[in-house]
Every structure is written in structure tokens, then in C-alpha cells.
């Protein structure tokens, strides 16, 4: 981190600022493109027209408003939430391998949703994010303590392994629940593969405000995360109340992850990849890492979802499959780098 930090500060900040409009531009472009492509390709002009001058009688406008716009918005929200969760987790655990998927939060969230559905039938949509959040929170704590109790403590390696173990365990139970109640699980099945297809815009209305709150809290805590990333003692020395900060961060991460899972199902490796890419450009200051992760995460998931829809058209690949294909090699690279 020191190499980047000792760069001339002014130039770095300028560079950091200047990236924002570029990245936002790219995101907007991808957003429009995302809406334009599909089974019936629509010209960008129609897309803009539909958004800014909606005519409910035009069939293309209906497609855009009822199908494509929700999906694009969901991709945007999920990408931003997961990337910011990942960034915060990496900062607070000082673990470059941290990601809501790798550390078991997604499995916990999915598990909670499935178990609820199993015992109480389909719960009202409003509760879904909260059930997911409870599952994610419990899983996060279990993973953390398993790693902590391992001799050597909660190192990136033990955290990752206990995350993988918990994920394997919960997935097995989820699969069994599936088999036992196949019919009512058909909806959940698509959801569990981490797909953005056919998602309900209702859910976005429910989770949207929470995602917004979560992102705002993340932005406001980012400065302290930078201190925390240098070690608990350093942070304390700088006047950060580490215990309280960690609790806030944990809640933020859990809420963001749960909302993302409720929206799109488990989507692996987004939270791992994006913060690392961001770090290449803005260094180790979380005041920059967090907002950039949000924008890049949104752009990334839009891009991936475009590929998911057009790669083997007319069929569709689950978006989660592609994020895993991209993310797993990054993960491998990080493990190798860490080991030097």
C-alpha cells in the first residue's frame, strides 16, 4: 500500500476524481446497451425514447418498461451491493480473498430463504431480504469463529476454507430440501443458480431503499476502513472505535449481501474481483475504493448479464456461472500471489 500512498497525493486525487465521469459514462452506456440487446434487438434511439418519452401503446416501450428496464436496474443494484460488500469485507478482515460468496454469507442467505420456504411455504416477498439477512449474519459469524478457533487464527486461508466448508454443508441441505419438495421449489431453483432472468421488480422496490442506505453508510465509513485495514492497533491509535466500527460494517455487509441475494440469488466472486481491479487504479484508500467499487460493480454485472443473454442466444446462461468463470481464475491468482 505504501507505494501507492507515497505517489504525489495531488496527482492521485486528480486521477481518482477524473475516473468517476469516465466510469459513470461507461456504466450508462452499458445500461442502455443492456436494455437494447435481447431476443428482439432494439435500437438505442428506441431505448432512449422509451425511457424519456414513454408511450404505453408502443409494444417496444412495453418490453423495455416491463422486462428490460427492471432487469437492468436489478443488475445495477446487485453489482454495486456485492462489490461494496466485498470491498468492506476485504478491508475489515485484511483478507484479500474476502467475498460474500467465499466467506459463506450467500450460502447462509440462500439457506435461510430455502428453509423458510420449506417450513412455511412461500413467505411474503417483503420478509425475504430480512430472512436472507439473518441467514447471512449467522453464516458470517459461524465462518468467522471456526476460522478464529483454528490455531493461527482467522487468517485469509482459514477463513476461506471454513467459508467453503460451510457453503458445502448448507448447499447439501439445500439440495435435500429441493428433492423433498420439488414442485414448490421450481421458482427457487432458478433463483439459486444466480440468474437475473425473470426477476420480480417488486423485490427491487423492497430492497432498493435498503441498498441505498447500505451504500451510503459504506461511503461514510470508508475513511475509517482505511485505518482499520492497517491493523486494529493502528486504527485505535488513530482514534477509531474498532469494535463499534466492525459491528457497523458487519451489519452493512450483511444487509447489502442479503439484498443482493434476495434480488438475484447467489452470485459468486463479484465482491472479490471488483475491489481488486479498483485497487489497481486508486490504491489502498477506501474513500476511493468503496465508491469506485460500487460503480464498477454495477457496470461489471451489466456487462456480464449482456454476455449471459447473447452468448448462446436464444438460450441464456445463468449470470452467476459467468461471474464464477471470471472470478475463479482471479481467486487462484490471488492465492498464488499471497503465497509469493
Amino acid at each position: 500500500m505504501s507505494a501507492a500512498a507515497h505517489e504525489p497525493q495531488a496527482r492521485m486525487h486528480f486521477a481518482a476524481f477524473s475516473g468517476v465521469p469516465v466510469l459513470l459514462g461507461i456504466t450508462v452506456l452499458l445500461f442502455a446497451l443492456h436494455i437494447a440487446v435481447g431476443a428482439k434487438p432494439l435500437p438505442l434511439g428506441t431505448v432512449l425514447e422509451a425511457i424519456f418519452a414513454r408511450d404505453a401503446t408502443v409494444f417496444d416501450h412495453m418490453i423495455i418498461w416491463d422486462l428490460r428496464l427492471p432487469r437492468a436496474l436489478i443488475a445495477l443494484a446487485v453489482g454495486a451491493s456485492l462489490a461494496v460488500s466485498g470491498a468492506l469485507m476485504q478491508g475489515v478482515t485484511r483478507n484479500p480473498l474476502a467475498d460474500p460468496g467465499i466467506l459463506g454469507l450467500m450460502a447462509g442467505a440462500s439457506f435461510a430463504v430455502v428453509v423458510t420456504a420449506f417450513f412455511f411455504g412461500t413467505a411474503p416477498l417483503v420478509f425475504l431480504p430480512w430472512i436472507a439477512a439473518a441467514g447471512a449474519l449467522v453464516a458470517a459469524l459461524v465462518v468467522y469463529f471456526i476460522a478464529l478457533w483454528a490455531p493461527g487464527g482467522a487468517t485469509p486461508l482459514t477463513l476461506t476454507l471454513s467459508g467453503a466448508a460451510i457453503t458445502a454443508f448448507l448447499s447439501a441441505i439445500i439440495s435435500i430440501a429441493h428433492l423433498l419438495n420439488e414442485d414448490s421449489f421450481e421458482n427457487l431453483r432458478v433463483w439459486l443458480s444466480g440468474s437475473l432472468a425473470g426477476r420480480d421488480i417488486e423485490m427491487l422496490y423492497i430492497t432498493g431503499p435498503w441498498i441505498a442506505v447500505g451504500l451510503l453508510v459504506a461511503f461514510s465509513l470508508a475513511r475509517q476502513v482505511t485505518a482499520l485495514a492497517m491493523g486494529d492497533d493502528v486504527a485505535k491509535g488513530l482514534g477509531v472505535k474498532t469494535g463499534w466500527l466492525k459491528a457497523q460494517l458487519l451489519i452493512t455487509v450483511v444487509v447489502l449481501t442479503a439484498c443482493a441475494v434476495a434480488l438475484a440469488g447467489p452470485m459468486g466472486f463479484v465482491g472479490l474481483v471488483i475491489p481488486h481491479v479498483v485497487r489497481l487504479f486508486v490504491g489502498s484508500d477506501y474513500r476511493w475504493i468503496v465508491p469506485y467499487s460500487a460503480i464498477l460493480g454495477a457496470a461489471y454485472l451489466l456487462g456480464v448479464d449482456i454476455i449471459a443473454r447473447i452468448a448462446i442466444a436464444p438460450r441464456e446462461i445463468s449470470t452467476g456461472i459467468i461471474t464464477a468463470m471470471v472470478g475463479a481464475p482471479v481467486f487462484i491468482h490471488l492465492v498464488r500471489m499471497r503465497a509469493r
Partner: protein
Amino acid sequence: MSTSAGTASDHVVIRSRGERVALRLPVRALVAVGVLAVLLLAVIGVSLTVGSYGIELETVITTLTGTTVSDAIDNVVWQFRFPRTLAAALVGAMMALSGGALQNVTRNGLADPSLVGISQGAALAVVFAIVAAPGLDYSWRPIIAFSGALAVATLVQALSYQRRRGNNAIRFILLGIGVSAFISSITSALLTYGDIDRAISALSWLAGSINAASWTDVQILFVWCVVLSPLVLGLTRIMSVLRMGEDTAVGLGAPVKWVRYALICVGVGFAAAATAIVGPLGFVGLLAPHAARRIARSGVGLHTVLTALCGALLVALADLVGRAAFAPIQIPAGLITAIIGVPVFVYLLQRAAAKSHL
């Protein structure tokens, strides 16, 4: 047979005249072999009686001895339950031996073929074959699986090898997890891409289910067992000195270099053949060698036998439970072994972490 002075009484020393055969074996482990074998037979017996069509044990035995009680019972026992139960036991033993070999060669108690991507590699190769060349004969599957699995094993080994420090146990597993995530995502993509019918046949196989095992499957498994088991038993002496590190093993005159490759190939072969028939079966390779060690301490040779028995017993039992617990719905054995395996993995992780910090 003779017991000699200076040997603790919990061992028997077997020496033929001329000392062609001269072994020192722990009594407890020998007893354990007997007990496990009896238990395995018992589980197989029970397994034959349980199902949607309940059959008395006596009737089962009568049927197995060749007397036809009724055509229906004959059919159920001979065509469905017996091959399935045998396949479960064989697959369990093979996954267990694969885990044992891999743990030895990586000196890593956490190594398991399904954890480090070897099973996934086999699965990917088979799915690819199902989707790309649907007409391919069934018996080719193990060989396709073997090449996929071997490729992945080589990849993980190459990725995790560090020049001076050799292999680190936990890094090896982590890389395996990364590689298996990558391979699984490709498999899923292939399944999406492939024809739905074929994809579904591949999908049911991917859950690690022994439901449909036939006599052909048992034959294939048996042939691979017959080829690989003597190899692994022949290597146990070298595995024994390899436990103390490569340098010590070289000093004692073990041909370490080629044995490394041989052990990896044997481990991959067992896992690939088992995976080709019933799909990836999680955590058996992790559980069985550990359980065998817990049941009775012994040299590597006897431990290998115990490991195979533990694996066979575990999967036979998992299959039985998966079949009976929520009947008529069948839970694949792979899910049950995963649920048992994860807590054990967590337990082992705590100790492996301690060692890697030496």
C-alpha cells in the same frame, strides 16, 4: 507364528519359515478389519431388504443363494438392489483409497478428490462427452473421466508447487477450491448449452446418486478396482516412508520421483472411475482415511485396507439412509456424505492450520 521378546503384546508377529513373510501387525487393527467387514456385510444385507417393496432378510438370503421365491422379488433383489448396493460399497472404497493416496502424496490431511477439483475435472470431461458425443459407449466414461481428472490434478499440483518451499497444505486446498469453482462453472455452462434431455441425464448423475447403478456399472467398477488396488497396496511401503518427508524418503532409498506420479495417477484413477459411474461423491476421501486412523492405529498397509472398508461402509450406509429416510424420495448418497463430511473437515482444518504454521 511367534511372538518375540521386546514386542509389545498388542502386536502379533507373523514369520514364516525362512522369513519370506515377516510382519508385525497391531492386534487392534486386525480386529477392526474383521469388525468392519462384518458391519459392511450387515449393511449390505439390510440394504437389500429396505425399499418401497420390503423384503424379509431370510427371503433375500434365499434369493441370493439362487432359489427363486417369486419373480418380483428375484427382479428387485438381483436387478436393482444388489448391483446398487455393491456399487455403493465399491465406489466408497475407491473414493476412500483415492483420498488416502492423495493425502499421502501431498502430505495433507485435508486432500479429498472432490475438494481439490479432481472429481469436478472428471465430471466436466464426462459432461462434455455426453453433450458433444452422445453416442459414445458407456464404458468409455471412466477413461474420459480419468483424463479430465488427471488434467486437473496436474493443474492444481503445478499451480500450488513452489520452488523452494515445496507444497503447502492449505494453499493446495485453496487452489483446488478455486479450480473446482472454475470447472463447475464451465460444467454448468455446458449443461445450459447442451440439449435439455442430455443435460438432465448429466444433471442427475452430477448429484452423486447411486440410484440407477446396474450390473454393468458394478463390472466397470470392479475391473478398475482389480487393476488399481494391488498397485496401491504395493506402494504402501513407500507411502510409509513418504509420510516423513521427501528428503527422509530419498535417504532411505525410496524412488520418490516416480512414486509421486504413480500415487497421483492411482488416486486420480480411483476417483475418476468412481465419479464416472455415480458422479462426484463429496468428502468420502477425506473422511475414510481419518476414520480408519481413529479406529485403530496401524502401519500404512493395514491402514489402507481399513480405509477402503471405512469408505465402503460409509457410502453403503449413506446410500441406505438416503433411500430410507424420506422414502419414496431418494436423497443422493453424495449429499449425505457431504453433511457428515463438513464437520469433520472443520475439525481437521483446525489441526492442519496448526501444522502449517510450524
